[in-house]
């Protein structure tokens, strides 16, 4: 989406095969390596990035990757996918833009079931019951 809009996008994945999904004509730059490896992040140009998004399958990998980036470089926007709602809320409080898939889905389906209009995603995301 960002690449189509003309932005420079670099993607890091451990597996080269993951990049096949981008298609042959992709404008994205791809880098094979681990998201927590500072050398790989640098190769991908994280030091010059305007935004960094961590969206691997692992909550904790994303949490750590966001912090690695914040500790080492001055990236203005740092976000990540954190599926566990409690961890998501905690790191949101620390200034990371975190998105929890299940909160979005549950909220959207809930509204649909009640014949309600779908809301802005931030409304779904931040409706987190405070756990004990």
């Amino acid at each position, binding site marked *: 989406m960002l690449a189509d809009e003309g932005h420079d996008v670099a993607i890091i994945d451990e597996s080269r095969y993951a990049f096949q999904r981008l298609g042959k004509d992709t404008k994205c730059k791809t880098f094979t390596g681990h998201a927590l490896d500072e050398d790989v992040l640098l190769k991908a140009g994280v030091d010059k990035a305007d935004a960094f998004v961590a969206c691997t399958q692992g909550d*904790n990998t994303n*949490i750590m990757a966001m912090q690695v980036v914040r*500790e080492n470089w001055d990236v203005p926007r740092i976000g990540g996918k954190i599926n566990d709602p409690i961890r998501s809320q*905690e790191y949101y409080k620390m200034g990371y833009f975190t998105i929890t898939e299940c909160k979005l889905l549950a909220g959207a389906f809930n509204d649909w079931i009640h014949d309600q209009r779908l809301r802005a995603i931030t409304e779904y995301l931040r409706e987190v019951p405070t756990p004990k």
Partner: protein
Amino acid sequence: MYVVLVGGGAVGEQVLRKLLHEGHEVLLIEKKRERAQRLADRYGKGVMAGDGCEMRVMAEAGVNRADVVAAITGDDEDNLVVCQMAKRRFNVKRTIARVSDPRHEKLFKSLGVDGTISSTSIIFNLIEQEIETGEVLPIGAMQQGNLEVAEAVLTARSPACGKAVGELEFPDGTIIVAVVRNSQHMVATPDIMLQSGDIVVVLGPSFTSGNLLSHVGDPLGVAHHS
């Protein structure tokens, strides 16, 4: 003293055993059910099955009254999150993380983890003390950092010079694999006399025995508090 351990691999089991032996109240949280069951068969109530990164599990484990939380899984990112959540959600005073990638030690400290244990660093320190070389170079890690290979170059000052390979005292499970002399490598048989300029190649597990713990002192620092 109440200690919560997260991660019941070889390292977790050894630490659990040592702390129980010292009479501390300990709870080890292990994610894999079968592994947790096996540990519970051996150590009883001191073992709980669950994902130690989850708040529900942490709450159930009574992390809020823990004096120390030690995250010792093989995954650095899990260990970091356990320590941060223990601090932020449960106000745990002292958190300790095992670090497989030594490059993460500094990062963890600046992110609020009170103590880090890098098996790689510990092994290198021990080897350095024993051989006292100019440098000890990590060559590689295997088994998620549970096993490491390092080489050390002997200098004239090294106490190991003039000793036979068999005379060197290393922690259990740490072995000298080869000695390289004048670019020729030799299998490290106990009778080889070491001399200046030799390169000693060492293979070692991170924490195969409590023996290693006793070499470096108690990494949890609990012995001083009890």
